[in-house]
């Protein structure tokens, strides 16, 4: 004789009630065994994101696997795994915790799911601060799925040192020979910083579209595929980067 029931919250202990129709079968003193069939893991979406049931199940498994670790206060899944249909390499995670290490989380997930993860550890005390000062963090969390409710901080605070730090790479690109993807990422970063400084949303999908509009579809494809650029094209991109840097510096 068996039945399936949900665990309910009790004032001192959580409990499982025996359904009325089974009360004669399960009596006080009988020996029973309780087995976990499915974890109740809710997904909290930052924005409307269309996800296949396969991806939803993976995310639920990630949350369920990490929910047992009390030192983790919140988990976020973000990046191409949830924003692109198939064009993703790994699953990006932000783990909010003061104690656990990235290696511990990675090992646990790898053992359970055998998938590639990219994990960022953020101490709980730093998350709110980063939301305010970091354009890249805001962009990462714009489309994200969490195990707990989450609302992106509206207030933006300009921390010049932090912005300068983020601008180092686009500046370096002007002086070095780097591949197309690095240039593309630098352009996306500049666009994100510009939006942040203009108090505009750091929507990564929109940012990609804006970059494509700025440099043209042909060059955009070349950069993403690491196809060598013509001298004229490199010159044009350098001009765009320079002018964006000037604009940002004036803010």
């Amino acid at each position: 004789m068996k039945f399936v029931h949900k665990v309910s919250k009790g004032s001192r202990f959580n409990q499982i009630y025996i359904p009325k129709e089974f009360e004669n079968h399960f009596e006080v003193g009988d020996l029973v065994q309780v087995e976990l069939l499915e974890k109740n893991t809710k997904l909290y979406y930052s924005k409307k994101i269309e996800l296949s049931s396969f991806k939803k199940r993976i995310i639920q498994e990630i949350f369920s696997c990490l929910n047992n670790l009390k030192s983790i206060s919140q988990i976020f899944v973000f990046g191409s795994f949830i924003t692109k249909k198939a064009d993703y390499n790994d699953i990006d995670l932000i783990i909010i915790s003061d104690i656990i290490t990235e290696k511990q989380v990675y090992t646990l997930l790898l053992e359970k799911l055998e998938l590639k993860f990219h994990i960022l550890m953020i101490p709980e005390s730093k998350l709110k601060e980063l939301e305010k000062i970091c354009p890249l963090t805001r962009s990462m969390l714009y489309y994200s799925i969490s195990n707990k409710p989450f609302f992106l901080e509206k207030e933006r605070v300009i921390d010049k040192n932090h912005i300068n730090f983020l601008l180092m790479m686009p500046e370096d690109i002007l002086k070095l020979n780097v591949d197309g993807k690095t240039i593309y990422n630098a352009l996306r970063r500049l666009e994100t910083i510009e939006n942040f400084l203009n108090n505009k949303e750091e929507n990564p999908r929109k940012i990609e579209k804006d970059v494509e509009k700025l440099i043209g579809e042909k060059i955009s494809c070349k950069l993403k595929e690491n196809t060598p650029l013509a001298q004229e094209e490199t010159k044009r991109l350098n001009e765009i980067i320079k002018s964006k840097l000037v604009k940002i510096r004036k803010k």
Partner: protein
Amino acid sequence: MSKKDKISELTNILSKALRHRIGSIVNEHEIYAERYSKDSDTLIKSAQDISLGENWSIYDKAEIKTLLKKKLQKELEEKEFINEKKFKILDKELEKVLLFLELN
């Protein structure tokens, strides 16, 4: 490209890569250094491409180290927004990258 030019380019890239790495370690808000160290990794990979195509003598390696230290010192001095602790870890990070590229 002559060997001298290669040493110059290699040390240019590495000095910037190390500046990124050191900045992500010492700056208070660059707490998720691992994410930003991708910037540094990207540049180190470019340096590796240059380094692998050449047979470096011990004299070349010594020259690379001296030149790199000089350039890195300058890079770090110019970036005032990177915490002052940067100079304390300069040597350690420099040694690490040279070891990685088998240039020590």
